[in-house]
């Protein structure tokens, strides 16, 4: 009846006396191609993103993030350091966040990236270490085992398009058959993992690693290691906009782990350019 059946009509056009044929074709021009477009778009989406993206609400963006963590092996064990800030986008929102934690008797874990995902990882590790503790059979999880476990977790989450948005640093010392074995490794949100003498995450990759590569030596003493770490942290403080001047250093040895209270580094702003910033500026007023 009339031309009301055109456009977004849901029911197929019914045959009416007389103008039925033309109505059907009019609807067909709009209805069937629109289905085709929807199917085409859906198909493209599925092929590029995967079915899981439709089904699950996945974590696509980090919200509260921590910045870099740096760590290196020294004579007695492993030293790890980071700042205590967590940013909400570009706001330096939380200023007393502990991003390095002890795991079991033998390891330290430090994380950059989404802080809530780090808390979730700590919960998983809690379960692991608790069941180990309840066994009470003399076996305990060393840093290598925890690193391997975290790699599996991170990689599997990434495969489900729901990553834990972190770069993790795992360090520890465990008595092995050949004596004390120091271990330092890193896993990131896509499951890349490796073991190294010195690691850094985030901006530390660009600013701290070159310093570490130049100045790290085997068997540094604790004081030397702290000096090197502070040098890297200072560079990060000057150059990384999301780091704050409040740092925490932690170490792990065969005796156990120690996380030192936070402290600040002395910064120097007495450069000549800062004294009279408008000196070279030319303006009409």
């Amino acid at each position, binding site marked *: 009846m009339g031309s009301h059946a055109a456009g977004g009509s849901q029911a197929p056009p019914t045959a009416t006396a007389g103008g039925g044929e033309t109505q059907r074709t009019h609807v067909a021009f709009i209805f069937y191609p629109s289905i085709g477009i929807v199917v085409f778009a859906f198909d493209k989406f599925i092929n590029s993103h995967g079915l899981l993206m439709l089904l699950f609400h996945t974590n696509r963006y980090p919200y509260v993030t921590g910045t870099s963590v740096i760590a290196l092996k020294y004579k007695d064990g492993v030293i790890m350091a980071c700042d205590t800030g967590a940013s909400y986008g570009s706001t330096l929102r939380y200023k007393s966040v502990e991003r390095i934690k002890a795991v079991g008797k033998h390891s330290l874990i430090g994380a950059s990236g989404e802080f809530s995902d780090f808390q979730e990882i700590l919960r998983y590790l809690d379960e692991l270490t608790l069941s180990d503790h309840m*066994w009470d*059979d*003399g*076996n*305990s*999880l*060393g840093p*290598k*085992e925890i690193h*391997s*476990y975290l790699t*599996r977790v991170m990689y599997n989450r990434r495969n489900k398009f729901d990553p834990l948005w972190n770069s993790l640093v795992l360090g520890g010392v465990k008595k*092995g*058959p*050949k*004596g004390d074995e120091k271990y330092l490794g890193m896993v990131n949100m896509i499951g890349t993992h490796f073991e190294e003498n010195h690691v850094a995450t985030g901006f530390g990759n660009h600013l701290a690693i070159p310093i570490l590569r130049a100045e790290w030596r085997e068997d540094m003493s604790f004081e030397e290691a702290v000096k090197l770490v502070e040098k890297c942290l200072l560079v990060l403080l000057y150059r990384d906009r999301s780091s704050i001047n409040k740092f925490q250093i932690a170490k792990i040895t065969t005796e156990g782990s120690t996380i030192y209270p936070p402290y600040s580094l002395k910064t120097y702003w007495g450069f000549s350019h800062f004294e009279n910033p408008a000196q070279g500026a030319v303006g009409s007023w």
Partner: protein
Amino acid sequence: MNVYLGDSGLAGDCGGRREGGGREGRKKQGGDCKLLGSQRMHGGPACPSVSPSPPSSPLFLAKWQLRLPSLLRLHRGPHRTRPPFFPRSPILEKKKKATPPPPPPPPIKIVTRARRDPQTLPHAGKVGTLESTRRLKEGEGASRMFRNQYDTDVTTWSPQGRLFQVEYAMEAVKQGSACVGLRSSTHAVLAAANKPASELSSYQRKVFRVAEHAGVALAGLTADGRVLSRFLRNECINHSFVYEAPLPISRLALRLADKAQRSWKRPYGVGLLVAGLDETGAHLYYNCPSGNYFEYQAFAIGSRSQAAKTFLERRFEGYNDYTPEQLIKDALSAIKETLQGEKLTSANCTVAIVGRKDDGTIEPFQMIDATRIQEIIDSMEAAEEAPPAEPSSMQEEERTSDAAPMDI
């Protein structure tokens, strides 16, 4: 109660029923019920003759009652209709009574398990109730155990608190040929006696490698043992994959024991000696079909294992400090005890070892090859180290210190 037969349970015929039934009667009398007309057959649903009240008592019918074809209404007068189905002629009824009632069906024979009178058995007087089983001598097997009504199902307890199916599974372990395990603080050794099924066949494999750091020796149903070995290998591999570290032996033994607790399956008829290396040193566990497992310094299972156990009991206290070679020699001696006079050769036995070497590296689980075993046997015989074995026939008391297998 069949309304069509007019079977109201009374003396029962409609008063107007015709004698002599059949079509003839109907034709004679004109057939249909006079009151209700041709649609209402005698004995049909509207036939008042099926009313509960006796048909012979006359009732005065009011006019309105005449118009209602109600089942409760009686009608007087002779019935001219026949029942729609079977004739209820008294002649036939008489015939029915004449035939004797069919004989009752023969009682169904309930076949029960033969129950031997305990008094006729050789050990009469030594046992109490029918349900208790005598502790058996070594090597006798289950054939002398009482069968009882609690042993069909693995989910049935006996009044004494025993699960007989599980105990029978443990008997199966005793049927297998002997296996021996012993350990020091750094090494663990498993040895098995090879008994070929016939002269033409090879022997059944009894020692399996489960991971680089662990292996098992089994006695009992080897098919079940194969299944369990595969399970253990799987567990070790999964743990290695996630943690990149060997599965500790106590946790391996626990997983195996958990697998025995399946109520819908028969118990696994195989006992496993699980030996392996840990962070804390070498360990040896014995896993029972009952799901129990214990750690041992040295143990022996299978047939004629009591002789080996006696041998090991005398010497186990020094095992923690033994070198691997000493452990292997003791394992071979223990196997020799179970062979009962047969000559011990490298064809008769399998030996495997796992341990941690002095430099800290792991010595992976592997069988020792036959030539090396023969060398060790030869050196043993030359030195005549092992004291003469006590014959096992002297072992009358058997496992006196053990409680019933479930009593833990």
